C-alpha cells in the first residue's frame, strides 16, 4: 500500500478542460445507455404499444388512420419521451454521482445540455427510427411520413429539454412519474400543436415552412433557456442529499 499520495497539491483556476468534460459526460451517458438497455427499450416498446392501440380502439380504416396517423404518432412519441425522462438523473441521484457531477468545476448549464443531448441520442433517436415503420402501419403516405419524421426530429429535443426541467425538479421525489406528466403537459402542448399542424398542412398541400420555422424557434429558445432551469433544479435537488 503506497501511503504517500503521488499527486502534488496544486491550486488551479476554473475554466479549463470544458471540452474534455463534455466529451466524458457524453461518452459516459451513451455507455450507461448501452449497458442499461432496459431504459432505452422501455420507451420504444411503449411507443409501439400506444400506436398499435389506436386502430384497435377507434377504427382500422385507411381513411381515418391516414388523417389521424400523424397526431397518434406525435402523442405516442410525447408520452414515450415523458417515460424516458427519469432515466436522466434518477440513477445518478440514488448512487450519489449527481452530487459529484454538480460539484465538478465546469459550468453546470453546459454540462446539462451535453448530458440531455446524449440522452436524446441514446433514447429518442431510436424512437425516430421507428417512426417510418409506424407510419406505414397507419397507412400514411411516404412523403407525409417524411414530414412527420422531420417535425419529430425538431420537436423531440424540445420535449426532452423541457421534460428535463421537470425531471431535475422532481429527482428527489419518490415515484414522481405522474407528477412529472402533470408538470410538463402544458409545456408540451405548443410543440404538439405545431408538430401535428405541419403534417396536416402538408397533407392538404399547404406549405409547411411556417410551422417548421416556429418549431425551430421553439428549439432554439429551449436550447438556450432550459439548461439554466435544469441546472437550478439540480442544485436544488442535490442541496441536502
Amino acid at each position: 500500500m503506497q501511503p504517500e499520495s503521488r499527486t502534488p497539491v496544486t491550486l488551479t483556476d476554473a475554466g479549463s478542460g470544458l471540452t474534455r468534460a463534455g466529451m466524458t459526460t457524453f461518452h459516459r451517458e451513451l455507455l450507461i445507455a448501452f449497458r442499461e438497455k432496459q431504459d432505452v427499450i422501455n420507451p420504444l416498446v411503449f411507443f409501439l404499444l400506444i400506436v398499435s392501440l389506436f386502430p384497435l380502439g377507434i377504427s382500422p380504416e385507411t381513411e381515418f388512420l391516414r388523417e389521424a396517423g400523424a397526431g397518434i404518432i406525435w402523442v405516442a412519441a410525447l408520452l414515450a419521451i415523458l417515460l424516458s425522462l427519469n432515466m436522466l438523473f434518477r440513477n445518478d441521484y440514488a448512487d450519489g454521482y449527481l452530487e459529484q457531477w454538480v460539484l465538478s468545476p465546469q459550468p453546470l448549464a453546459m454540462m446539462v445540455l451535453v448530458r440531455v443531448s446524449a440522452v436524446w441520442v441514446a433514447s429518442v433517436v431510436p424512437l425516430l427510427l421507428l417512426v417510418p415503420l409506424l407510419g406505414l402501419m397507419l397507412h400514411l403516405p411516404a412523403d407525409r411520413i417524411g414530414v412527420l419524421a422531420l417535425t419529430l426530429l425538431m420537436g423531440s429535443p424540445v420535449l426532452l429539454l423541457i421534460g428535463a426541467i421537470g425531471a431535475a425538479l422532481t429527482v428527489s421525489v419518490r415515484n414522481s412519474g405522474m407528477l412529472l406528466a402533470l408538470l410538463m403537459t402544458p409545456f408540451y402542448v405548443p410543440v404538439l400543436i405545431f408538430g401535428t399542424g405541419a403534417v396536416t398542412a402538408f397533407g392538404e398541400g399547404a406549405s409547411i415552412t411556417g410551422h417548421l420555422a416556429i418549431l425551430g424557434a421553439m428549439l432554439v429558445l429551449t436550447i438556450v433557456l432550459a439548461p439554466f432551469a435544469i441546472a437550478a433544479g439540480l442544485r436544488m435537488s442535490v442541496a441536502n442529499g
Partner: protein
Amino acid sequence: MWQWFHKLGSPKWFFGIAGRLIPWLGFGALMLLGVGIVWGLLFAPADYQQGDSYRIIFIHVPSAYLGQSLYVAMALAGAVGLIWRMKMADTFIAATAPVGAALTFVALFTGAVWGKPTWGTWWIWDARLTSMLLLFFLYLGVMALRRALEDPENRARASAILTLVGVVNIPIIKFSVEWWNTLHQPASIRMTEAPAMPASMWVPLLICAIGFHLLAGWLILMRMRNEILHRERRARWVRNWVLSQ
C-alpha cells in the same frame, strides 16, 4: 423605496400590515361584488344576441383575468425569492396557488356552461377556454410539486423555478392555442371578444372586476398570515400572539 421593500421581507411587519388590511379588503370585496352582481343580474339589459345567458360574463371574465394575473404574480414572487432570497416570496406563492387554481376553475366552469346555450355543447375547444384549461394544469402542477417536496427550502426554490418556466411559456401556449383554434374552428362559432358593450353592461362588469381583485387580495392575505404563523411558529412574537388569541 428600498427600505420599504426590505421591511416587506420581515414576516412580523408583514403580519401586522396584512392584519390591518384584511378587514378593509373583505368589506370592500363584499360591497363591490354585491353591487356589481346584483346590478349585472337584475338591472343590466339582456343581450340582443345571447339573451340573458351573457349575464355569466360578470363572474367569467373577472375570474379568467385574475386566474392568469395571479400566476404571473406568483412568477414575479418566485423571481424575487430566487434573486433576493426573500422567504416572504415563497409565502406568497404558497398562499396564492390555491386561490388562482380556484378562480381558474370558476372561469373554466362558467365558460363551459355559457357555451351550452350559445353553441349547444357543454365544452367547445375554443382558444381561450383551452388555454384556461392548460393554465389550470399549470396551477395543479405547482401545487402538486409543492406537496411532493418536504424540505421548505427546496419547495420554495422548486416552485420559483417552475412558475418562472411557466410564465415564459404562457404566451407561447396562448399563441399556439389561438393559432391552432383558427385552423380547426369554423369562424362562425368562434367565441367573440367581449362584444362592444353599452355602459349599462360594462359598468357592472368593471365593479365586479374590482370586487374580484379585492376578494383575491383578502383571501391571499389571510392565507399568507396563516403561512407566517406556521413558518415562524418558534418566534417569540408568534407565541405571544397565539396565546393572546
